[in-house]
Each structure stands twice: as C-alpha cells, then as structure tokens.
C-alpha cells in the first residue's frame, strides 16, 4: 500500500504513556497518533501480538483491555492510556500455561500459529466470563478471528477441553518439570 497511501503526517508530538501490560506497570513515550498494536510490538515487549491485516479484519492483533477483547490495530494507544492490557504473553503463570494454551497445543487448535495469540486472548476472556460455553457461545466469541489453517473445528475442540480443565480444577504441570528418563528403571 505504501505507494498509494497518503503519507502520514510526520513529526507528531511525543507524549508520555502509561499502562499496565500483563500486570506490570509500563511507561514510555509514544507518538501521539500511535496505534496500540505498534506500541505493544515496538515498545511494550509483546511481539506475540500479531499484525495480520491492519484493518481489523483478521483478529490476530486482539488483546484484552481491562478484560475486554479489543483489536489493537484499530485502537489508538492514547485511548487506552492507564488501562490494564493483557496480551498472549500474559496468559500463563510463569511456566504454568493457561488451560487454553495447553489444549490449543494438544488438540490441534494451532497449526501455523500466527492467528493463535488473537484466538487465545479472546477465548481466555470468554472462559473467564463463562467457564462452560456451548458451541454457539464459542462461535460467537471467535467470529472476529480468522484462521486459515485449522478450519476452526480443532479450535472449538480445544476450547471445550480447556473448559473441562477449568471446571474440574485440573492442575497444569509446570513445563520445567523433569522430562523422560533415558535410563528407566535404574538408579544412576
């Protein structure tokens, strides 16, 4: 588009900007016309938040602003100043993944993985609000997210499995726990 897009007005004001990104206070200076997606990717340390289309059509850039899914490519950073922003990096607790992260991996919800961060934040918001969603509720929640690989079916499977984990309070193992013993049945 570069050749055809009117040039952005250069030299916009630099303003200070604060928010809470993934539970950590964050402050920086940004151009006053910055888009939240750019701030998160270029300054906020969230390269997990993806840019897919620039037009709010694909949902890859979705983040939670005060718990509500928002398309960060259509959100001016100034608009959400002072808000609590959650990106895909903020879903897990240390090395304990969020159930939806765990099941997305296990049930094939993610193939190429580029749309995955957007889906995950939307679904985590859904599960927070409604830990046992039905098919229709799941579909409505993710209708703004495009996935080109999975055909969505395994994403729905993942959501259901995650819901089960949450309802049953199954503990998700720390990913740093010991893996397979190459010398089974013997004491070294």
């Amino acid at each position: 588009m570069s050749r055809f897009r009117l040039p952005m007005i250069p030299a916009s004001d630099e303003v200070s900007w604060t928010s809470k990104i993934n539970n950590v206070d964050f402050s920086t200076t940004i151009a006053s016309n910055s888009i939240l997606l750019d701030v998160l990717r270029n300054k906020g340390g969230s390269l997990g938040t993806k840019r897919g289309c620039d037009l709010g059509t694909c949902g890859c850039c979705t983040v939670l602003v005060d718990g509500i899914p928002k398309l960060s490519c259509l959100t001016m950073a100034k608009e959400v100043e002072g808000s609590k922003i959650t990106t895909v990096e903020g879903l897990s607790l240390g090395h304990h993944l969020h159930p939806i992260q765990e099941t997305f991996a296990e049930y094939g919800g993610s193939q190429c993985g580029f749309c995955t961060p957007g889906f995950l934040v939307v679904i985590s918001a859904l599960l927070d609000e409604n830990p046992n969603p039905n098919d229709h509720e799941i579909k409505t929640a993710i209708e703004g997210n495009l996935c080109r690989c999975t055909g969505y079916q395994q994403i729905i499977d993942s959501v259901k499995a995650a819901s089960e984990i949450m309802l049953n309070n199954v503990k998700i193992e720390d990913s740093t726990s010991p893996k397979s013993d190459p010398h089974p049945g013997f004491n070294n």
Partner: protein
Amino acid sequence: MSNDDEMVGYRQQPGKLPFSRPGSGGKNQFSELRDIQLIPESQGGKKHQPKGDHRHDPLISGTSIGKSTALVDSKWKVTGKANYGDDIRLSNELIGKIVRSPHHYARVLSIDISKAVELEGVIAIATGADAQNSFGVLPVTKDEHAMAIEKTRHKGDLVACVAAIDEITALEAVRLIEVEYEVLDSIHDMRKGLDDSEYPIHDRGQYHIGESNVQKRVFQEFGNIGEMIPNSVANHKSNWLFAGVNHGFTEPHAVVADWDPSGRLTLYTPQQVPHYVHRALADVLEIPMHQINVYRTFVGGGFGGKSDPFPHEMCAAILARKSGRPVRITFDREEVFWVNRGRHPSRIEMDIHADSDGRLCGVQTDALIDGGAFASFGHVTTYYNGVLHTAPYELGAFHYTGARVWTNKPASGAMRGHGAVNSRCAVEVGLDDIAEQLSVDPITLRLANLLPPFSATITGFRITSIGMRECLEKVKKASNWDKKFRQLPLGHGIGIGCGFFISGSGLPIHWDPNKFPHATVHLKIDMDGGVTIHTGAADIGQGSDTVVAQSVAEVLGLPLDMIRVRSRETDTSPVDLGSYSSRVTFMNANAAISAAMEIRKDLLKAASIITETEIEKLVIGDRRIFDKQDPAIGVSYLEALHKAQEDRGALTSSGSYRTPPMGRAHKGAAAGLAPAYSFSAYVAEVKVDMETGQTKVLEVWAAHDCGKALNPLSVKGQIIGSCHMGLGQVLSEEMKYSRGGDLLNPDLLDYKIPSIHEMPKVNPIIVESNDLEGPFGAKEAGEGPLLPILPAVCNAVYDASGIRVNELPITGDRLYKEIEKKCKILKISNPLNLPNPSLIHSDLQTVLESRASKHSERDLERILSEEKTPYHNGALFGMNPEVPGDEQDSRWEIRVIPDDQYLSNPRLAGSAWRHVERRKRND
C-alpha cells in the same frame, strides 16, 4: 511417437514400467525384505495388517507413530514466543519500504532519488540498477528481478526501495522518489494473451512463442483419439471460469537481512523453500552460496504462497548491504495481494465421453490459465492442469491442451492443490453429469472405473497404493448417501467429489535426481541421550518437524521430549527442497528413518555386546533394548548408547531419500510423476436458498487416503483445514478485477475467507492404504484433501437446485442469475416450483455394481499378492494390461505436438500452438 525431436533426456526408464522392490535409493539403501517376525512381541507381535506388511514394520517400537501428537513447536506458538518474520528485531535495524508501480504496464524512463536522499534518516536507496541478474523459482523461467530493470509489469510491481531509520521516514522517502513512466497498453483478459502483441510482457529471445504472451503451452494426446467420440453414448461438455484466489495466510510477508562483520549474509524469512531463496540470493547478489545463511523463521501459513524466492527478499539484502545495517521489510496486507502467487484464474473446457458400458472412453481438457506478470511455478501448473486428472479413473483416451499466458496482473503461482484443483472440479462435475445421463449413481460410476493398485495411468504415472475405493465406500456409508441422493427436497442437496494428488514431486526442480537425493536428514546423539535432528524441511505449520521427530522417536524407541529438531538454518541443515508438492512427510520422514536406522544398528550392536545376545534376537522398545524371547534380558537406552559411544563419542548419522526411476519419456512426462499418490472422496450436503441463491454447506464427510496417519491429529487438521480453504474458493473467495484491470479487493474485508459461521461440520475419515514406499506407509495429507470439496459442493448445489454452475465462486448473485435464467426457460415464475433433479436407475446400474464388486476383489488380490504383475491403463477397454497401449496398438498414439488438422480448428488454449517459436521461424 511422431516427433522425435521433442523427446528429452530425462534419466528415466522409458516405456516399461518396472515395479521395483520398494525402497529408497540414496546413500542408505534399505530395501531389505520384510520380516514381520521382527515386530516386538510387546508391540502386539504379528499385528493384523489388512493391506499387507510394510517394510518399516520391524522398526515399530510403539512409542510414537499413529498416535495423535501435539506439534513439537506448539508451546512456542501458544505463548507468543514463536518468532515470525516481523518478530526478528536486530539492534540498529532499519525499516525498508518499497516504491511500487502505479501503472499496469509501463516503461521506466527515469528514477530521481535526489529528494529522497536528502531526507534526514534515509540511509540507503536501491533501484533495479543495483541488481541486474534475473531469478525465478524454476531454472527454465527466471523472469523476475529484484526491482524493475526496464519495465514494470503490473500495478504494485517493485521499482525501487528505501531503508530508513523508521517507518514514517521510509514512507516519506518512498513518496519523494520520482519515477517517470511511459505507460504501455496493458493486457488483463487472459484470452488476449494468446494474441500477438506489440510489446510482449516478457521477451524470451529465441524461445519466445510468436510475438504473443504465451508463457507455456502443452499439447498431449494419449490413446486412440479417433474412437473416443464414436464409441460414446453420454457426452459432457462444459465451459468453466474460475476466479483467481489468494492463499490468505494470516502472516504477511516479512524479511530481515543482516550482513555480519565477516561479510556473510543472514536472511531471516518465513519461507517454505529456503533452498531456492538461497540459490536466488547468490545469483542476484553475485556471491557464492556459502556466503549466505537463510534462516527460516516461524512461518505464519504458506499454502504455496511463500515458496517463490521473492523480490522483496532481494531488496532487503541489497539495502542491508548498502547501508551496513540490518534491514527489515514487512508487507501490509495489500502488498501481499500485489505479490500474490495464488491460484491461477482459469478458463477450462471439459469434455468427457462415456460408452454404453459406463466406461470413460475419453477426456478432453483445454485449460487456459492466467499467469499474471511472472512465470513463477507456471511451467508446472500448465502441465498439472491436465495430467493430474488422468487418475484415479481408467481412461480410454486423453487429450489435453493447456496454455499459460502473461497478463499485467500480480503473478499467479503455486497454491495448495497446485494446478490440479480447478480441472479436478471440472472433471468431477462432468462425471456427475455423465452419471445423470446414464441414469446411474455417480458413486457407483466411479467405483466401476477405478485403476487398481500397482498400475500405470494413461500418461504413465506409477500408481502404487490406492485407497480410492475405500474412501468412496466410507463417505457413502457415513453420509447416508443412498437415502439422500436425488431424494432431498428442492433447495437441499448432496454431492460427491474425488481427488488425486502427488505425494512429492518425482523430479526435483533444480537438479538431476541421480546426482543428489531429494531429502537428507542428519542425526546427532551425545552423552545426554537426547537426539538432535538436522533437517532442512520447512515447518510451515503443517507439522513437518513433528513428523520427522516422530519417525526418529519410533525407530529409536524414545519419547518425543527427547528429540529436538533443528530445521531453521541453511548453515546447519542439510539441503532440502522445501515444503511444496506435498513432499515433506514422504521424503523427509523416509530420510529420517534411514538415518535413525544407522543409529539403531549401533545401539543394537552395543546392547548385544553388553547382554551377550545375538543382534538378531534384540528389539527396541520404549527406552530399552531387549531380547524378544526373554524381555528380562536387556539394557536401558542410555546404557547401550554409552557403550556405543565408547569408540567415537557422539553418534551421528545421515539418511537420505530419492525417488525410484519412474515414468515414460515423452515431453512433459516428468510433470506429475510422484513416488506415491493420495486419493480422497468427499460428500457435501448443502442448502440452497432458491429465492436468493445463497448456498450454505451443512456438513461434509471427508475421506482421505494418506497411506498411514503418522499423526492422526495433524491429518485431521489438514483435512478440515483443506475443506475450509476449498469452501472459500467454491463459495466466496475471488480476486476481483475491475474492467480496467485494477485489483478491487486487496484486503481481508472484501476478499472473503470463510469465518467460523460459514464453516460446516467436517467429519474427517482417515483411510490407510499402507503405501509400500512411504514412511511407515504414509503419503501426503496436506494438499490432496482440498481437491474434492469444490466439485462435491458444485454437485450438491445441482442436487439441490438443478443448476449446473460453471463459474466459481458460487456467490448468491451468480447462482440466483442461473436460477432466474432457468425459470425463464421453463416459464416458471416462482423458483420454488423448479423441478427437483431425480434419478431412476437404468439397467446399467447393476452392470456397474457387479463390475465394481469384481474390481474390488481384483484390487485386494493385487495388494496381497507378492507378484505385482503390470497393469497399464486400457485393460478395462480390452487391451493387454502387461504392456503400454502404444506398444500393442498402432492406433494408440502418444503425441505432444498438434498436427495441421488440429491447428485448423484449435480450442481456446490449444490456439497457443498457432504461434511458431522464434527459433523455428524462417524470418
């Protein structure tokens, strides 16, 4: 064979079709005879194999193969830690932006960069003058440049590029570069491309075809063409128009180039085919390949759209070289559409003839495909549009004319189901029509015309395993076909479609297969016991890293967490041809097994020394090597490993795969050759709103023969995902061009990819035909599953509405126009009163049913018998199956050049043959 000068020197075995012993060539021959006694008792011993034994059976340790497995890199993806192209951020980086042509076709007269240079923050500017060498994915058609040399060939074509300290500065610099153009007359209708032109879009010198824009033309005749029509009682004729579609991957192209202090280039790029970029960079930058490291980042979807070497990749490297700093170029979505490489817009004329026995006595296809401004993979696409529908059915005669033309549009290229999708749709819809004319069930018609296992198609492709029959039978049962077909009310319908696709291309693009293997895998195991796999296969989300890891894990009896795959860098990975033509599982997993077998031998030998047991008695189970008869005798994996390492430290091995010799020797015989083929059959159930023309797919039953599902989770994911992509093409996706040739919808708002609400329930059905040469029996599952969904939906729309569509996508307005037209013809005012298609079986139905059941027995016999007698296409028509048609009947011909009689009245694409190549002209 009429034209000897058209015979080319592929190193194949001409004529005869040898059914060589299964096994790969390469460095590690492992065509040992199968010994099922070696299957560990603990893994079920002599397990039941309905399709016979497999040479990899003795390697089964029961740890990994056939188990639904999460992708080994999925944890990176779900935590946001996966770095895609634009996520590579190097310190001191510059942002690159591209100056693009605003004209469809223009001569570049001058480029004035003086103003841009003066802009503060602009570090480097490059134009076509900085990179004169051409490149392209196929060595025969290198027609691209990093930036325009003389002409720009489509709107959005690259003219210059800029590197600046930030995006705004780079965009401003792009604006300040003044380019003077001389606008030329552009071509947008593919039919115009067949004509002579004053300024053809490319000039191929002495190989140029007339003065036209024909980039590639194909003429193929197999069989007794003269008898095809007189013998027929049912004739289908259709004229299709397929809109171009884009891959629609979610990650826009992005690239980072960085020259290190020693003068080596590292190019970070989300590529399906790092090796071809590697070659192209060396050509364009004029440096040796060893001076370049291509680093494949995570790839946010490929589907064929990230398999060409791209001009912007060259631009980043050039800018980084000039500026001395890393340069990152990221596309916005519009630029993705400018670079395109999506499925070709096509005009396909399909004629199918069937005789009174319900045999397909002739298929005549004419395909004109719109290549856009560059060749890309088009040379191959032109062949694939024809040759990939010569199976799974036995044909009396086959005639194909194809042509690919250049037009002033973004280039078309390879997209999932490369070249086979559109013509397959036309064939399968044609069969539905033939069945209707013969008053038989379309599934029965197909079942009675299938090629058997271990047979040769009419063009000489070697079919080994074929699960087509099982696919058809399974979807028929699962969809409750017999209760639904032609029995549902108006507006509600069901349809069938089949598919056939290559599992890896038989010939590599860049070299003689006798010189290098197609795929190579290296293994390294040090004291810790973890296995490092080095492979160049590009994981683009399909799970190739996982399948390679699973294969090694299975052979060595290890859990997956002990395997790590290093597949990113050309510096550390053996050369691999990349992720295209559905080759990775077949070729790479075979190479991995071969490498793992070397290690396995070392481990068994070590265990044999420790336990003082003969090697032949030992088997590998989960992290343990033990005596099959007495499992108490054994050692742990680590013990055996450490013993094996005593002499030489870390164990390393290398395995490779190459295809066996295949195919015939006519020109174009290599296109479509594959070591194995996948088959699929889908049934779709749809609702058509007769008053608006809106089509909604309710449910799909999708059976795919992938040989053996190494990772059923991934296979199902590929089947459902293929349905999604195919549904987009058949119902909503279309690259729309205005009359003036402007692309109207280069964004995801107007380019309509199905959302969750358009997606029906898909019931994936895995059929396992246990391919003898596939890794553990596996074939491809990534592209083939896309083919059948298009015709299944088209045929279901007919069953629902009585309308035979011949233009895709079937949008509401298109279908409603057809409904309206039909109402007018039948003088019916209310579309709800249109007649509903019905079927009363003719006598032929029972004939076909009994033939199908006889063939079913024949097929099983051929699978299980040790002696694979030759079966050449044509036996169904009474010919001798032992020899190819042309060797037994003088009227059965192979021709690859049209004669004067054809040229006096050619079909659309066939008219490309009226031009004479410049070198063959006398002027």
